[in-house]
C-alpha cells in the first residue's frame, strides 16, 4: 500500500444504484429530525446523508409520555413514530433540504401496504429526494397489529411493490427482534432492495418500582445506544455474509473506532442514532475522524475496510455453546 501524506485525498464516497454518497456516515432515522432542527449546531453537508424521521401519510402525534428512559449504556424510547406526515414534510422541510448539498434519504413507516405505496408515490413526484429507507418495524393494522418486520412474506411484498414505484435507492431497514435476520435480508434482496439497514431497536422494558408501573407509557419500547452495539455487530455480520447488496450498520456507534468495527464486519456505511442526542455533531466528528484514521493507517479508500474482517468461521457450531 502506498504511503499517504496529509495532502493526499482519501476516498470516502460510495455509490448505491448510481447515486454517489459523499461518505459512509449517515444520521439514523428518528435521531436527527428532518435535518433542519439543529442546523445551527451541525454542518450536515459534511455527512454521507441524512435519513429523516419515519414519515407516514397523515401526521402522527405519537405515544403518550413518558417516552424516554435511560438504561445502562442505552435508552428506551416509545416515541410512537410521531411525525409531521408526508405532506407537511414536502411543504415545510423539503424546500430547505433542497438548498443543502446533502443526500436526503426519506424513511417511510406505514400501517398498511397501501400507505407505504401512497407515501413513496407522493415523494416520487418531488425534487430533492435521494432515496428511501423503509421502516418495517411497524404494525400492520390489517393483520391485527402484527409487525411487518417479523413476517418475511409481508416484508417481501412491501419491498417488491415499492421497487416497482421507484428507480431511486431503496433501503429496507430490518428489526433485530427475529430469530434469523438473514432470512429477511435475503428476501428483501430478492424482492429488489438496493441495501439493507441493520438494526432498528431491540424490544426492551423498564419498571418504576415505586409506582409499580412501566417507565414507558407503552409498557415496552425500543432499546438503542452503546448497550446494543455487540448485538448490532453480530446482526450486521450475519446479514453481510448472506446478501450481496450493501448493508448500513446501525447500533450504538459512538466513535470512529465503533464505525470501523461495523465496516470490518461488512457494513458499507454506518448510521449514527442515539449518540446524536448526546453530541449533535458526533456524526460529523466521526466522518472527519474516519478520514484521519484512514490517513494514519495508510488506507486510501474507506471502502477497503468493508468486510475486511479476518474471521475463522469454522467456529459456527462451537459458537452456540455459549
Amino acid at each position, binding site marked *: 500500500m502506498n504511503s499517504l501524506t496529509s495532502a493526499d485525498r482519501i476516498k470516502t464516497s460510495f455509490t448505491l444504484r448510481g447515486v454517489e454518497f459523499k461518505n459512509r456516515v449517515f444520521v439514523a432515522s*428518528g*435521531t*436527527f*429530525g428532518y435535518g433542519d*432542527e*439543529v442546523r*445551527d*449546531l451541525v454542518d450536515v453537508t459534511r455527512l454521507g446523508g441524512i435519513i429523516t*424521521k419515519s414519515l407516514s401519510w397523515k401526521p402522527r*402525534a*405519537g405515544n*403518550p*409520555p*413518558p*417516552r*424516554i*428512559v*435511560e438504561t445502562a*449504556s*442505552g*435508552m428506551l*424510547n416509545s*416515541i410512537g413514530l*410521531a411525525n409531521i406526515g408526508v405532506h407537511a414534510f414536502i411543504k415545510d422541510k423539503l424546500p430547505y433540504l433542497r438548498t443543502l448539498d446533502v443526500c436526503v434519504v426519506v424513511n417511510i413507516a406505514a400501517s398498511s401496504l397501501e400507505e407505504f405505496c401512497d407515501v413513496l408515490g407522493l415523494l416520487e413526484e418531488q425534487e430533492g429526494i435521494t432515496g428511501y429507507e423503509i421502516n418495517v418495524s411497524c404494525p400492520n393494522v390489517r393483520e391485527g397489529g402484527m409487525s411487518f418486520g417479523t413476517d418475511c412474506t409481508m416484508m417481501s411484498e412491501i419491498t417488491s411493490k415499492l421497487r416497482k414505484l421507484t428507480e431511486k435507492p431503496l433501503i429496507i431497514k430490518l428489526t433485530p427482534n427475529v430469530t434469523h435476520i438473514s432470512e429477511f435480508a435475503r428476501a428483501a434482496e430478492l424482492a429488489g432492495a438496493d441495501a439493507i439497514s441493520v438494526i432498528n431497536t431491540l424490544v426492551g422494558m423498564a419498571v418504576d418500582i415505586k409506582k409499580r408501573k412501566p417507565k414507558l407509557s407503552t409498557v415496552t419500547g425500543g432499546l438503542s*445506544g*452503546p448497550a446494543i452495539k455487540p448485538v448490532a455487530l453480530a446482526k450486521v455480520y450475519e446479514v453481510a455474509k448472506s446478501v450481496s447488496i450493501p448493508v448500513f450498520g446501525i447500533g450504538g456507534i*459512538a466513535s470512529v473506532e465503533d464505525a470501523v468495527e461495523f465496516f470490518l464486519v461488512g457494513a458499507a456505511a454506518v448510521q449514527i442514532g*442515539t449518540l*446524536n*442526542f*448526546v*453530541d*449533535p*455533531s458526533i456524526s460529523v466528528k466521526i466522518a472527519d475522524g474516519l478520514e484521519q484514521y484512514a490517513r494514519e493507517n495508510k488506507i486510501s479508500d474507506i471502502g477497503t475496510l468493508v468486510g475486511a474482517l479476518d474471521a475463522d468461521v469454522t467456529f459456527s457450531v462451537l459458537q452456540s455453546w455459549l
Partner: protein
Amino acid sequence: MSTRVQQLCSVRSCQEVAENTFLLRFISQEIASSAEPGQFVNILASGNGAGVLLRRPFSISRVEKDILEILFHAIGPGTKLLSRKLPGNRIDVIGPLGQSFHGNAEFDTAFIVAGGIGVAPFPFLTDELLKRGKRIETFVGYRTAGQAFTSNLQHLHLATDDGSGGFHGTVIQLLESSFVQDHSGKIKIFGCGPTVMLKALGEFARRKQVCCELSLEGQMACGFGICQGCAVERADDDGQYALVCKDGPVFQSTEVNL
C-alpha cells in the same frame, strides 16, 4: 430564539449550599450573553459517556457577567458526577435552550412559587424582574428547612412539609392563605417544581383568574428538539403534544395538561 451553542466550559466552583443541594458555576461568554430566565442548559455529566449516557438538563439559575449558575439536587448518577466537579474541570454544555418566562407582560407584581429544587430558575428571573421594576413575592416550599437555599430571592415566604421552618404545610396552602384577591388583576404567577405542585398551582391560577407561567420537566433524550421524547399534552388540541425542550420548558398554565 437566542443562539444556542455547544461548548466545553470551565467549572468555576461547585459547592454544597444546602442539604444535598449543589451550586455549580461555570464560564461561558456565549451562553451568558444570550440566556434568558427560564431557559436551561443541557450538560454532559461524564466526559467520556461512561456511567451516564444522556445529557442532564438544568435551569439556568443565575447569570453574572460570563458566569452561569445551576442549582441542583444530587439524586442520581448524573447529578452525583456533576456534584464532584472541581474548579478548572471542563463540562460539555449546550445552551441556552427552550423558551423563557415572559417578564414583560402587563403586571405589577410577580408571585414566584417554587417547590423544592424548582427554586432553581428564580434567582435569574428575580434579577430580570427587578430591572423591570416589578414587585416580587416569593413562595418557596421544602420538605424540610435544611433544604432551603433562597439567596437572591425577594420577599420570601417559606413553607415546609414538616414544619421545621416557616409555614407548616405545602407552598400552595401558604399561597392560598396569603393571596390578596384585589391584587389579582395586576398579578402574574411564575411556578416551578414537582408536577403535582404545578398542577395544583395551575388550578389555583385558573380559580383566581390570574395569568400563570409554569416551568415543566420532562424525560429528555436530546434537549434540543430532535428526539420527540419530552412530549407534554396540549390542553387545546386533543391528543396533540408540545415539546418541553423546544416549546417549553415554560408554558402558560392553560396551554398544557399536566
